């Protein structure tokens, strides 16, 4: 179970990354579930996560985009 789910579907740049960054900073560590609808958002979120020291633990295609699990253990 993720600590928080962020639904960034349908949002244009840079909002998905902004939302994810804000929540990564707030949580500091843990698990974030992120829903995006485009490949661009998926790539941007992955890049931002890695930059902040988080890893993309899981990524799966859904009916309307992608579901990503971001993780930071410590």
């Amino acid at each position, binding site marked *: 179970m993720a600590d928080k789910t962020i639904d960034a579907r349908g949002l*244009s*740049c*840079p909002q998905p990354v*902004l939302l994810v960054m804000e929540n990564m900073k707030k949580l500091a560590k843990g698990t974030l579930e992120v829903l995006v*609808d485009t490949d661009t958002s998926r*790539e941007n979120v*992955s*890049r*931002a996560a890695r930059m902040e020291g988080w890893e993309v633990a899981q*990524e799966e295609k859904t009916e309307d985009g992608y579901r990503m699990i971001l993780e930071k253990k410590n």
Partner: protein
Amino acid sequence: MKGNVLATRWGIVLVGASIGVIAPLLQKLGNPANMGICVACMERDIAGALGLHRAGVVQYLRPEILGFVLGAFLAAVLFKEFRPRGGSAPVARFFLGMCAMIGALVFLGCPWRALLRLAGGDGNAILGLAGLATGIWIGTLFFRGGYSLGRSSPQSKSVGLMIPLLMAGLLVLRLAYPPVEGQAASGILFYSLQGPGAARAPLLVSLAAGLIIGVLAQRSRFCTMGGIRDLILFRQLHLFSGMVALVVVAWVVNLILGQFHPGFEKQPVAHSQHLWNFCGMMVAGLAFALAGGCPGRQLFMAGEGDNDAGVFVLGMIIGAAIAHDFGLASSPQGVGPNGIAGLAVAMGICLFIGLTNLRRS
């Protein structure tokens, strides 16, 4: 990035470098100086070709723009990224497109041309780029304050096809009514006999260049506004490195081709009113930021089926018509008779859209 080499750091540098080669070559082959590619100028020329404005020196149905959308469409279909979507504040995005075009035509170029002007030695581009960065910085303040035009939602395939089909239709018009030597019109299309609109690379070269860039930019997500925005907002160099590659490579190619002429005065299709060069691009930068992409990126997203980007593109084309019909566009002599007033209105519209769409969750 899994499976997408062009979305890596080196990928985006490669794409920027490719544009840096292609644009000066287009100039060598006939496009206007420092205007191998300029999304704003080329959409303005298309508006003129269709008779939406009657500025005789800027009328030509630029095949590069059609290629941008159709190339992005092909890439999106091929890589299963064609995703019809839309419905996020279309009218606001239309107005942002108009404002972006008005600002760009006060400066005389979009961010792509600002980079190409710099690479050609035009010092006025420095003012334009500073204005662009300032406008984008203002945009980031709105984003930090919770600015959003709301979510788009999935649309039907046919809705996603609208802009690619429009571009295909324009291509049919271009083929049906080719330019005729010495004639200012062919069928329903207008063709400039002098000025920038009369400077054009051969059809197939322009179209091929547009298609190649369309494919590359769709895959890499190349965005000249995003480059500066991400640098300011996230201290991220990814997209910015593509812009740097574009300038450096275009500068080298210009040197090789004898197209580098440093200075401020008498630069091609440019004026030296520094304040208005700055302010023009500031307004354009803010409009691009609020709409989520530079004018090129909006074309590529429209090719992916994004109707909101498509509406922005249409806003830019109509904005170009208005800019020329109402005397807002600059010329090498300086700003147009109503350029400053137009710029003030455009800035007001952008600020209004920004301030009234702050949604804190």
